[in-house]
Each structure stands twice: as C-alpha cells, then as structure tokens.
C-alpha cells in the first residue's frame, strides 16, 4: 500500500476532530487549551503533508508556515495559561461554566 496524501489528511483530520472534542466537551479551562493546541498541531501536520506531496518542493512554503505557526501557538499558549492562572487567583475556580459574570 503506497502512502498517498489522503492518508496523511485523514490522520490530521482525526487529530483535529479529537482536539475539537477536547475543546468543546470539557469544562476545565486547561483542557480547552489542550484541545486548541491539538487543533493547531493538526493544521501544522496538514501543511507539511501538502508541502511534501506538492509538485515544487524546492519552495519550503509549507515548512515555513508550520514553523511560524508553532511559534505563534507557543505564544498563545503562554498568554492563555497566564489568563487561567489569573482567573484562578480571583475566582478560585477553573471551571468555565462558573465564569459567567458577563452573561446578559
């Protein structure tokens, strides 16, 4: 069985949907961040797979996008976790269902 692009896309889709599952169905703020990071990693895998199977691989466009995406995801994870710590300090909870002060 030769490896086609389809197989890599199926794996990255499954990873994205598992990340979506974690982000949508968990009530702890850190789990939601874990889900978001997993979705970003699945998108990176997608980019690299498309770069590898492209017709002009001398242009490392997919690789560069993935490198920048990893940097941005790390920055966003840091800020998100700082937010979680700050919220925990004020409200002593990390359950996002209990953070409803801005609710209309």
């Amino acid at each position, binding site marked *: 069985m030769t490896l086609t692009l389809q197989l890599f896309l199926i794996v990255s889709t499954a990873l994205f*949907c598992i990340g979506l599952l974690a982000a949508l169905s968990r009530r702890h703020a850190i789990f939601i961040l874990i889900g978001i990071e997993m979705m970003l*990693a699945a998108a990176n895998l997608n980019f690299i797979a498309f770069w590898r199977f492209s017709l002009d691989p001398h242009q490392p466009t997919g690789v560069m996008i993935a490198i920048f995406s990893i940097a941005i995801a790390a920055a966003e994870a840091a800020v998100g976790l700082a937010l979680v710590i700050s919220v925990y300090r004020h409200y002593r909870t990390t359950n996002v269902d209990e953070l409803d002060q801005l609710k209309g």
Partner: protein
Amino acid sequence: MNTAAFIVIAILTLAAALAAATLQKLMHAALSFAVTFVGIAAFFFLLGAEFVGLVQVFVYIGAVAVLIVFTILLTRRDVEKDRGFNWSGVVIAIAVFGGLICAIFKTQSVSVAAPAIPALTVKRIGEVLMTNYVWPLQCVGLLLTAALIGALILVMEEKG
C-alpha cells in the same frame, strides 16, 4: 516512506490524543498530550521535514506541555479531576470529522503518491527565512515579545 512506520505512528498519535481528550485526571491528560506531540514530530520526520520536527519537540513538548503541567500544579484544588462532560461536543466533533472525510475522499487531486524530492536542508530554511520571509520573522519576534510582556502583566500581583 515506510507504510509500517506510518501505521505505528498514526496509532500512537491518535490513541494519545484520545487519551488526552477524555481522561479524567488532569495530570494523565497533560502527559498523554505530550506523547501526542512526540507522535506528530515523528510524522514530521517521516515527511522529510526534520527541522520542523525538532522545533516541535523543543517548543511544544519542551515548553508548552511543561507550561501546562506547571499551570495544572498551580491551579489545583482538593479534587483535581474534571467534573462535567458535555456530550454535544462529541456529536459536533463526529459531524465535523464526517464532513471533512467526505471532502477528502471526493477530491481527486489528493490521492497522489509522494514524489521524490531533494532533502530540505537547514541551510535552505535559513536562506528562505532571511530573504523571502524576513518580514514574517520580524513580526513573529515582535509578537513573542508582546506575548511575553502580556503574560507577565497578567500574572503579576498588584501591590496594595
């Protein structure tokens, strides 16, 4: 590319991702989240992008996963399990998965085999980063500085 390697890495990654998404104890979920990233880095190696695989190991496993573990330790209460699980999230995730898989199978242009490519060297990545992508590089530097300052301000204790 090795088919057996692909299957092993795919099973490892997806199993670890499912464990990270569904385990009750936070610490176990965070550690299997790190194993997921090991699997993704292995995929990058399989696809010939070794530099990105190593960057992934350094940044995601070495920084993000460790940061998540530290935050779990800092925001711990008496019970460290996650109470409450929303089942509609499972339905939405399966629906999105089904839709995307349909789209993948209907596209003819993605069922191609891998062409033989010259190896991507770090020299080439460095050249491209400094010539074509120099502005995104500066912007990412600025963004990382802003994120650093922002994160520090968010967790700094106010005096008085």
